[in-house]
């Protein structure tokens, strides 16, 4: 992530900047350059302290996010969830995986549904098989190349990752067919926008066995040019009933489980702030709660924050956000045969998808 620039951000939103406007190096005399560097460093440090400010999204980026989020169509989301769950229900119970817990673990029908949806969209995709892992995985990858020419002027070589796992216990509508469907909707919208950063959508295999799909991916490809990771895992269950939301030990959450939680590491603090701001800007967005610690959340009271596919990014110090309805802390159907489409809140899911799509568009241009 680029450092903040207090002179511009403290006085207001940053103006759009193209790569050609960057000052060239080596033109100033060395001593003058050093003085300027020191001066800039002081301004950056003291400006940051005094203003307490962080890089901000420009009005163009907010507008982009608003427009992108508004393109989400609600009705097809729930229809697609029902379609995938129905397909999984007809899948042989053991699928291709033998699970030590003896719980029906399905992945083939969901994978096939994703591949068919991508083909219908006309989006190039590939299946990356890693059969040599102790748990063999087959991740699905979609690449949406950036242009470097959007309002933020971020380089196209930087990659934003949107991830969702497609393997499930039973026929899990919330965990994680909801995330898969939102990621497919994001592809359908984001591919038509000329965004600066490249976007990589990863449908991970074998998350429920211990995030094997994402670990395999990161082990093979590393963190080359990854700007940030947004991971969707169980994002469609909501309840307005007081007391419907539980919290992990040591934390307090609102009593009503009607918000989407964005868990982040310290590196993702700006992204979480932007998402919180965008949740008020994007029409019909879901209410958002961001929670983040100063570093990687690998401490006794926060280890549970690592329970999904964003964890490898956190472990590498990269900005990562875990979007979730908090699963078992809210949803009584979590990892149960009753996790079915009619238990979900379609309006809430649509609001979350709007926020995800809008935020991805903004992140593709963000400082």
């Amino acid at each position, binding site marked *: 992530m680029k450092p903040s620039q207090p002179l511009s951000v403290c006085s207001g939103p940053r103006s759009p900047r193209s790569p050609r406007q960057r000052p060239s190096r080596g033109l100033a005399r060395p001593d003058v350059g050093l003085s300027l560097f020191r001066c800039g460093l002081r301004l950056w440090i003291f400006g940051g302290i005094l203003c307490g400010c962080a890089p901000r999204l420009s009005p163009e980026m907010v507008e982009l996010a608003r427009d992108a989020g508004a393109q989400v169509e609600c009705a097809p989301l729930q229809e697609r969830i029902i379609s995938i769950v129905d397909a999984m229900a007809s899948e042989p119970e053991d699928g291709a995986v033998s699970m030590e817990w003896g719980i029906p673990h399905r992945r083939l029908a969901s994978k096939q549904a994703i591949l068919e949806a991508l083909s219908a969209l006309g989006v190039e995709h590939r299946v990356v098989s890693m059969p040599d892992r102790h748990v063999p995985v087959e991740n699905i990858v979609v690449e949406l190349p950036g242009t470097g020419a959007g309002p933020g002027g971020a380089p196209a070589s930087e990659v934003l990752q949107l991830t969702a796992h497609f393997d499930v216990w039973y026929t899990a509508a919330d965990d994680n067919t909801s995330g898969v469907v939102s990621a497919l909707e994001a592809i359908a919208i984001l591919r038509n926008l000329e965004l600066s950063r490249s976007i990589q959508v990863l449908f991970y295999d074998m998350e429920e066995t211990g995030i094997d799909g994402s670990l395999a991916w990161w082990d093979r490809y590393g963190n080359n040019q990854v700007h940030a990771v947004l991971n969707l895992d169980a994002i469609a269950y909501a309840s307005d009933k007081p007391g419907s939301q539980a919290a992990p030990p040591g934390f*307090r959450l609102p009593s009503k489980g009607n918000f989407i939680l964005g868990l982040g590491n310290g590196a993702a603090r700006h992204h979480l702030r932007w998402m919180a701001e965008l949740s008020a800007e994007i029409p019909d967005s879901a209410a958002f709660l*961001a929670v983040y610690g100063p570093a990687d959340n690998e401490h006794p009271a926060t280890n549970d924050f690592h329970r999904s596919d964003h964890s490898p990014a956190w472990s590498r110090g990269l900005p990562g956000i875990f979007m979730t309805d908090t699963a078992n802390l809210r949803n009584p159907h979590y990892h149960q045969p009753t996790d079915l489409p009619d238990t979900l809140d379609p309006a809430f899911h649509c609001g979350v998808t709007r926020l995800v799509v809008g935020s991805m568009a903004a992140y593709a241009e963000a400082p």
Partner: protein
Amino acid sequence: MSGWLAAVVSAGLAAAGVHETGLGVEVARHDGPRQVLLGVGPRLTHRYTASEHTHWFVQGSLERLWLMVPTWGLTAGGGVRRMGPTWRPLVLLEAAAYPSRIVKLTTEDPTPPRLPASSLRVRVAPLAFRLNGTTQVSALEVAPGLGLDTPRETVAFSVSYCSLFHQW
């Protein structure tokens, strides 16, 4: 040279009043709508009293806590204590600040808090005893308080166990 320095420092401290330094175990909690912290770790305290016969004192502490996030804690305050021959309970008002904490942002309030997790606490040490001329022990100290970020909703407290003080 070091002997001279130690002598000068000791003389200065003796002339300036009574100094006590203690080490104990601290459990601290700051639970608000925007900042959360729960931690346990060592607490180093230095206390100053103008003279052996003065009830009033000031003290500062440095804590290092782990559990939710690793953080330093700084407290400063002043209070009064009973200067009995053995039983020396005390009560003080202290301000505490923890720079590292879990932050929460919402749609309604998306701006991160600028100040550390800060609170104002009343520390009560009812089980403080003088063991001999230079050693004191405080078995249990309880410090309930209110957060300074959003006082109406933030609960803050700390508990110290087994603090052992040496008087200089």
